[in-house]
């Protein structure tokens, strides 16, 4: 075990897969000599050469479309969209095309490609360097979506994604890149896509989250412990397919659920999690299914005060947990 940051884990996952499998390659803006704007591919072009590490023109549609073509040819491309805020240009190739290819060819044509997308706020990025785009992805049949919260999950899930025969979007919260560190095994491992993880066991309330917000949930759970309330913290880790069983098992145990995410409330992953619970665990519930999610504004603003007003923190979550515990 070695303590690493999320960005290190991401880099290591890609590097190991590129060493192990010559079909794995990466492309995106500035992934070459610059090593990516977050340094996710630092040293790659030197190690793997320009054929496998392609600095692309500034054109996201082509980054995704070229990746899909490469996948058709049998390569295993990892495309990087530099910031989530710019993914819209690639939406047609990712959702319109890649996610439909296997189904549309009656199973003949797989699309093994990974699209890595740094996302999320709290970094003073304003409306166009902070977006949460989960709600435009997790609703897509044919696509898989992972959203790890820590280095261990990031490495294991990203490696699994690279080996997956389907298009997988890997959502990496920018604020976790350097802000979250944790132990990563020294040896080879992968983690299964589609399995949530109980990050903290508890008996009274379940809080369901992912990404950066998960850490605020853990901190809030700690606070609640002091107040005598035992909170279970479930990390979804994968946003599609959602781990229905994992969600239901935890909620059936605690009978109370709070869903927490940074993305806007309406139509977010929390809506689906709530609907699953409301449909399948209705009889087990002791309280309304609550959400504490991003306010419905177009992303967090640049000014510190406004950004703080938007962003989650442990206090806000504790307040919501208190209400739910007291219900």
């Amino acid at each position, binding site marked *: 075990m070695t303590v690493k940051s999320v960005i290190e884990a991401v880099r290591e996952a890609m590097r190991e897969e590129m060493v192990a499998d010559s079909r794995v*390659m990466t492309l995106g803006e500035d992934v070459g000599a610059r090593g990516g704007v977050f340094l996710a591919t630092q040293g790659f072009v030197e190690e793997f050469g320009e*054929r*496998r590490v392609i600095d*692309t*023109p500034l*054109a996201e*549609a*082509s980054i*995704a*479309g*070229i*990746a*899909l*073509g*490469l*996948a*058709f*040819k*049998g*390569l295993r*491309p990892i495309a990087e969209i530099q910031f989530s805020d710019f993914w819209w240009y690639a939406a*047609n*190739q990712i959702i*319109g*095309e890649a996610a*439909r*290819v*296997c*189904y*549309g*060819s*009656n*199973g*003949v*044509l*797989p*699309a*093994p490609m990974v699209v890595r997308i740094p996302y999320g706020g709290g970094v003073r990025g304003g409306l166009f360097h902070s977006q949460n785009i989960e709600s435009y992805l997790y609703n897509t*049949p*044919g696509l*898989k979506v992972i959203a790890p919260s820590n280095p261990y999950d990031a490495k294991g899930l990203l490696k699994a994604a690279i080996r997956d*025969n*389907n298009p997988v979007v890997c959502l990496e919260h920018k604020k976790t890149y350097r802000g979250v560190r944790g132990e990563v095994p020294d040896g080879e491992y992968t983690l299964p896509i589609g399995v949530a993880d109980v990050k903290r066991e508890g008996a009274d309330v379940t809080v369901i989250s992912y990404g950066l917000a998960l850490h605020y949930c853990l901190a809030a759970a700690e606070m609640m412990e002091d107040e005598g309330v035992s909170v279970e913290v479930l990390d979804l880790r994968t946003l599609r397919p959602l781990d229905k069983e994992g969600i239901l098992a935890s909620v059936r145990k605690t009978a109370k659920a709070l869903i927490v995410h940074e993305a806007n409330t309406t139509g977010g992953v929390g809506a689906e999690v709530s609907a699953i619970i409301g449909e399948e665990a209705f009889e087990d519930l002791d309280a309304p299914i609550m959400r504490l999610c991003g306010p419905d504004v177009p992303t967090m603003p640049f000014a510190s005060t406004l950004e703080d007003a938007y962003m989650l923190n442990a206090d806000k979550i504790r307040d919501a947990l208190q209400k739910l515990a007291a219900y």
Partner: protein
Amino acid sequence: MFQTGEGASLGTEAMPLHRSLGLTDEAMLGLYAKMTLTRALDDRLWALNRQGKAPLVASCQGVEAASLGVGLAAKEDGDCFLFPYYRDMALKLVFGITPMELVIGHLGKEGDSFNGGRQFLLQGASTDRPMIQTSNVVGSNLCQSVGYAIGCKILGEKTVTLVSFGDGGSSQGECHEAMNFAGVHKAPVVFVCYNNRLAISVPQEKQMAIKDLADRAAGYGFPGRVVDGTDLLEVYQNVKAAIERAREESGGPTFLEMKVERLRPHTSDDDDTRYRSAEDLEASKGRDPLVKLRSYLTNIGVLTTSQEERIRGEAREEVNRATEEAEKAEPPDPSTLMRHVYSP
């Protein structure tokens, strides 16, 4: 209207052009038969639509010479991969797709080899044809084809990728991105644009402020050529050259603008009298690629009237057989709806 220039390949020279291109008289008869079959099949599909059996048909009439020429050059080359578009029936027939597969594809029956009845005709992929046509989204095959071509290069393979699309498709942002990417990487790809001067009802002058789309290639650092797409041999020659260039170390992409015609409404859903003048349609019919090939072969004595009749008769029979068989096929089992959302 595109005019065949002075370098036009059709005529009755002492040494007919096809022989100087290495095509035997027999091969030419085979190609004429293929084009005749294409036309017969296209007519039949339209009829099947009118009978309420085929929900949608996009006719290829007017583009057969271009599509057949692309198919011929690619097939002869032996190491080409294709990203065709919806009017490429002739090309598909060259690559061994059977009339019966084509009819089944239009009916959405079990046994469809590209998509199992999930999509329109031959969209999807099959295990044994060097061909992918993912969707109906005009323009989206372009970047994919360039990615495929770059993939071949990365793997050190010599395969050349060909992608076809219409004048309408050239307006998409992805067309620009694909051509630019291909230029930077000298990707072994041939861009084949079938310009019939119409995107459904929108005429060329409302699509672009230029006469020849081929001019755009200069902006990407590779050659663009205007080709008379109703002339099989001119197409064949140009595609062959483009494939060779793609494969050369210092080569790379070529953009071929095929000036073609649209002899039918956009699709079976369209009513072109709303927007197209009778004169314009007549002028198009004057450039019918099938008529052109027939005249060429008749004029030089390669095709006789009796051969012509035989070929036409065989085509009719083949289309009949294909239709009968396809109509017998069952629709897919509804229980398969949930299959293949993900690849294992």
